[in-house]
C-alpha cells in the first residue's frame, strides 16, 4: 500500500506502524462522573468495519507523524490522509 503523507507525499506502507481505530483520539475526561465506564469503552471497545475505516498510522521510519488514514478495509482504497495532530486540534476546538 502507498500512504499519501500530507507533508512528505506518497510513502510505502512498510515505513509505517499501524495502531488502529482513530477513535483513540477521543480520550475521555478523567473527571467525568462516569469516567471509569468511559475509559473502559475507550480502551476496549472498537469498531471493526468491513468497509470505510479511519485509522491511526505512525510514520516511524520517517518523520514520526501520526496520521489518520481513511481506508476501505475491503479494497484498501485510501480516500483521505490527515495529520492526527490537526484532527486532534480541530476536535479540541469543537469540544472546547
Amino acid at each position, binding site marked *: 500500500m*502507498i500512504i499519501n503523507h500530507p507533508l512528505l507525499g506518497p510513502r510505502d506502507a512498510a515505513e509505517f506502524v499501524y495502531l488502529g481505530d482513530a477513535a*483513540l483520539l477521543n480520550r475521555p475526561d*478523567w473527571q467525568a462522573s462516569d469516567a471509569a465506564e468511559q475509559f473502559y469503552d475507550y480502551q476496549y471497545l472498537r469498531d471493526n468495519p468491513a468497509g470505510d475505516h479511519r485509522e491511526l498510522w505512525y510514520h*516511524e521510519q520517517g518523520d514520526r507523524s501520526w496520521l489518520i488514514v481513511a481506508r476501505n478495509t475491503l479494497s484498501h482504497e485510501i480516500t483521505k490522509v490527515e495529520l492526527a495532530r490537526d484532527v*486532534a486540534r480541530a476536535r479540541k476546538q469543537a469540544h472546547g
Partner: protein
Amino acid sequence: MDNSSQPQRLTGGMVDRKQALEFQFNGKSFTGHPGDTLASALLANGQRLVGRSFKYHRPRGIFTSGSEEPNALVQFRSGASHEPNTRATTTELYDGLTATSQNHRGSLNFDLMAVNDYISPMLSAGFYYKTFMWPKAFWEKVYEPIIRNAAGLGRLASEPDPDTYDKGFLHCDVLIIGGGPAGLSAALTAARSGARVILGDEDFEFGGRLLAETYEVDGKLGSEWVANAITELSAMDNVRIMRRTTIYGAYDHGIYGALERKTDHLASSGGKPRQVLWRIYSKRAILCAGSIERSIAFGNNDRPGVMLAGAVRSYVNRWAVTPGKKVAVFTNNDDGWRTAKDLADKGVDVTAIIDTRRDTSFEAPRDTKRVLGAHVVNTTGRLGLQSITLSDGQTILADCLAVSGGWNPNVHLTCHQRGRPVWSDTLAAFTPGSELPTGMIVAGAANGTLTLGQTLREAHEVAATVALDLGHIRSTGSPSTADDEPSAITAFWHVGESRNRAWVDLQNDVTTKDVKQSHQEGFRSVEHLKRYTTLGMATDQGKTANLLGLAIMAECTDQSIADTGTTIFRPPYTPVPIGALGGRARGKDFRPTRLTPSHEWAKAQGAIFIETGAWLRAQWFPKSGETHWRQSVDREVIQTRQSVGVCDVTTLGKIDVQGRDAAEFLNKIYANAFGKLQVGRVRYGLMLREDGIAMDDGTTARMSEHHFVMTTTTANAVPVFRHMEFCRQCLWPDLDVHLISTTEQWAQFAIAGPNSRKLLEHVVDDGVDLSNEAFPFMGCAEITVCGGVRARLFRISFSGELAFEIAVPARYGNSMMDVLMTAGKPYNVVPYGTEALGVMRIEKGHAAGNELSGQTTARDLGMGRMVSKKKDSIGSTLSERPELNRDDGYTLVGFVPVDRSKKLTSGAHFVAKNVAPTTANDQGYMTSVAFSPSLGHSIGLGFIERGADRTGDIVQAVNLLANEAVDVEVVSPHFYDPQGGRLRD
C-alpha cells in the same frame, strides 16, 4: 555441426548452431545450443521421458513450452545450489548444465513407486480422508511415515543456499506485463508518448507467441519485427526492459512484485546476486500476459509425447526441434490445423489430424489423414507414445500427439485483488472480470482478443489512452498491422467414450473420474471440487487444467460453465524462491546489530557478549584463570561493591523532552508527579499503559526549566517513544513540547561503588564539585570532562552503591571507557557486564523487564502509592479497577531458600507447603533469581498473593520442568542495604 547427436533438430529457428553446449540429464551427456531451453534440448536429443507423476508415478514428458508446465519438473544443478521442481521448459541451457529427473525410486525408466499406478482405484480423490481414519494408533507409526516418504516431488538441497539475493524498488508511469505482440505494441506506444515505461517478460527473449509462430507483422517476419521493437525501446531513456523477469503479483495501489533471474542461465553466479526481487510502483499497468492453451481429456492422455499443439509449434518454429517423427494432431479449433501445416512445412511427417468438429474446410497437408467429427479415445506406449486409437476404431501411429482444446486468456494477475473472471461463450473461455486491481488494464490475448491483428491494434489503443490519461500528449504513431488468423472453436472438453483414465490436472494427477467422484459425493461447488480433488492446487495452479475440471463438473451438474463459476488465482504467478523473498536479511543480517560505544574496548578485554534486542552488550569480562561465568560475575559484583565498577549503559533509551509544557507533558505520561521536580534534580518515573498495567520505568532529569532528559528500559526505547509521540500529537496537541530520541547520540556509563566519586574527580574538569552537598543523590548537571568535552552527569544508582552515570557525545564513548578505566586504576576499578548489573539490581529489589512483564500493575510492584490521584495521567483511571486492586492480588517480594545451599529457579510457581502443585493451589511465581555474592546464597524476586503481609511465610517454589521443589521464605525484596545509606553518602 554433427546432427546425429540431436536427431530431432530441424533447420531454422532461433538457436545458435555455431556453438554447442554440453549438458547432462540423469548423468547422460547431451548437446544443445545457445537459445535452447532444457526442454527443447532434451527433445532435440529424442529424450521424451523426463519425470514421474506426483501420485501414480506415471511416466511423464514435456507438455508445454512455457511456465505453465505441469509435467517436466526436474532437479536443477547439484550440491548446495540444487533446486527441485524446476521447469525444464523455462530453464535456459548453458554449457555444463546438470539436471536430474525426480519423484522416482530406482531409475526413471523403472520406478518402483509405479506400483501406485496399479492400485490407482484405491488412490482416487478423497483417498486420504477416507483411508487413514482407523485404527487410530496406526496414524503416527505407520501411515504418517509412509505418506511423508512418498510425499512431494523433488528433494531440497541439504546444504545452505550459497547464492545471494537482492531486493530493489522501481517506479514507472506504465508497467507492461508481458513482452509478446500486445506488450511490445503497448510499450512502443506508451514509450513514444514520453511516459516512463517498464516492460517485463519472464522469457529470456521478447516476442511471446510471435517467436513460436510464422506470422508476419508490418510485412516482416514476426521475430524480425520483435527485434526492431526491442532495438527502438532499448534506445529510449524512459524505458526499462526487463527480460527473465516474472511479474508475479498485483498488490495494492499499483504495486507489483517481480522476480528477475540474473544468473540462473549461467554456469555460476560468479558472486553476483542470483535473483532480484523488485517492488514496482506503477501509475498504470497494462497486462499483456497472452493466453495459455488447454488440453482435452481422453484415455491415457498423459503419456510422454502427448503435448499441447501450441507448444509443438514453439518447438518446431522457435527451437527448430520436432517433438516427434510421426506427429498426429487432435483439435477442437482452427489452431490444430496451423500446427499440422507448420510441421509439414518443416518436413515433419504428420500422420493424421483429428478435429472434433464435422464442418471445417481446412485442408490437411499432403499425406496427412484428415478425420472430422472424431475423437482420440486411447493411447499406447509404456514410456512414450506409440499410437493413438480413435473413436471410429482405427489406430494411428504417432510418437507425438499435438492436442489443442482452445486458448484461455491468461487472467491470473486480474484475480490478485479477488477479481473474478467472466465466461465468454464465443471464446469458450474465461476473460478478465470488471473488478481489476487498481490501475490495471488488460490488452491482447489476456483480454480475450485472441488474434494477432486485433491484439496489436488493441494494445496500441489501450496504451495511447493510458498515456493521454497520465498527461503524455506526444504523438504515439500508428499501430503495427498484421492479419487475423483463423481462430474458430467449438468447445469440447473430454472424450466421453474413453474407458481409460483421462487426466485433467497432470501435476496433481487428477482425472475425469476424480471430478465425477467429487460430484457424486456432493463436493459440487468449484471451491469444494478444488479442495476435494486437489485440482489446480499444484505449483502450476492448474494453468492448463482448471477449466477442464470445471467443464466436467458443469456437465455433471447440468449447469453452464458460467453458472458453475471458477476459482481464482493468487500470487505468485509462478513459484518465488524463499531466498529471493528473504533477500539479504539472512543469518546475522536478518536484522542490524547495534554496538555499544565501548564495544571495541570491551572486545579488546575479551568480553563475552550477549544479544539484548538488537544490541550486543558485554555480559561479563572473564579474567585468566576463571573457568566458570559465576567466578567472573561474582568478582565484578564484589569489586564494585567494595571499590568501584564501570558499566556501559548506553542501550537504555534516552528521550530529550523540551518545550514550555514539557513538565506538564511528563505529568500526563508518568503515573507519578513531575511538575514540581527542581532543575538539577532527577526523579524515578513509572509509566502505565492506558489499561492501568505498568509499561516502563526509568529516570527523568530536569536539565533546565524547559528541558528534561528521560531514560527508558533498553527493550522499550522504541515503543515508549512511539507512545509519547502518540500522546503528544493525538491526545494533547496544544502542549508546547518536542521529543527527540537521543539513545545513539550519547554514550552513557554507570560508575558505581564507594570510590566512584574519587574516580570521577580525575575525569571532570576543574570547577565541577562532586561533593555530597554540591551534587547530592538524584542530582544532575551539564558539565565538561577531559578538558572541555561536553558531558551530562547524573547521580543515580541501579546498583545501590554511591554511583553516577556520565554521558558524553557517542563519538567519545570508546575513549571515555578508556579514560575511566585508567583513572580508576588506583582504586582497582572493574568493568562489569549485564550479569553483574542484574545481580546487583536483584540484590536491591529493583524491578526490571522480568517484573515489568505487561501483566503487572504499579500496585503489584509495590509502587501503588506512586500513582497520583490528583492528576490525569495515562492509565490512572483504569488502574483503579477493582479487579486490579484485589486484596489477594500479587505483590513483588523477595525469596530466599530455607536451605541456603539450594539454588532458585525463575519461573517456579509458589504453592503452600504440603500442597499439590496444581493450578488451583498456585499462589504466584518467581520472576528473577541470582546468586548474591554479597549474601553468599541464592536470592529471588517474585509475585505472590498478599505478599506484603507474608514476610516470614515459608512456601514451596515448584519447578515442574525439573520436577523439583525448594522451600523458600518470603522476605523483603530489598536484600542489600535496605535503608539505602550507601547510595546517599
